[in-house]
């Protein structure tokens, strides 16, 4: 089941630069998308989300972009900090109101921010 794909298993960036994490999806019924960050031995921590009625959502250093026609979303982190080093999961959901409760996750991208 590859409905949500994160094709880069890892990404390494320098502190202060931009990190761009990518996610593709195949199910056109998905209408809500979330990014989670996960440190080892911890649960996923919610970062930012976007509804399919928007193409951009920003929260501090984190911005998520959604391209519905390409079924692609990306997470931008600017500027990147060493504390951002973690695994980032993209997740998608069908039916914002009264739809499925299930989050479908990608495999994750391990981000390393070098000082």
């Amino acid at each position, binding site marked *: 089941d590859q409905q949500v794909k994160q094709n880069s298993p890892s990404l390494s960036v320098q502190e202060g630069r931009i990190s761009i994490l990518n996610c593709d999806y195949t199910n056109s019924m998905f209408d809500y998308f979330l990014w989670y960050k996960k440190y080892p*031995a911890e649960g996923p921590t*919610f970062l930012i989300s976007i509804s399919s009625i928007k193409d951009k959502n920003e929260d501090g250093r984190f911005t998520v972009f959604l391209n519905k026609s390409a079924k692609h979303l990306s997470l931008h982190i600017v500027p990147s900090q060493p504390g951002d080093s973690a695994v980032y999961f993209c997740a998608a959901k069908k039916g914002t109101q009264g739809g499925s*409760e299930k*989050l479908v*996750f990608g495999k994750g991208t391990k981000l390393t921010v070098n000082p």
Partner: protein
Amino acid sequence: EPEVTQTPSHQVTQMGQEVILRCVPISNHLYFYWYRQILGQKVEFLVSFYNNEISEKSEIFDDQFSVERPDGSNFTLKIRSTKLEDSAMYFCASRVMSSYNEQFFGPGTRLTVL
């Protein structure tokens, strides 16, 4: 800041034994979930629970699995007869009624079936 808690952090059991994984969701949350992550694989949805009943479950959630909210604070996942392939991290999550859709996850329980 309120958080989802899970106990135990690590559970080791013999194949065929029953295990109960416990979760305390965030206190004003009304939707509860269990997910699991087998080593090296994706986080997978197991079940959602609302208003004291299962609202959705995946194909993984077969008759060996059950969930319960025995009191106002705990949410449990029971595996009746564990198999080797049940070894995984199990995450509990919860969300409020009014939030759009963000689910807040606990730290997980690592289940090892020998």
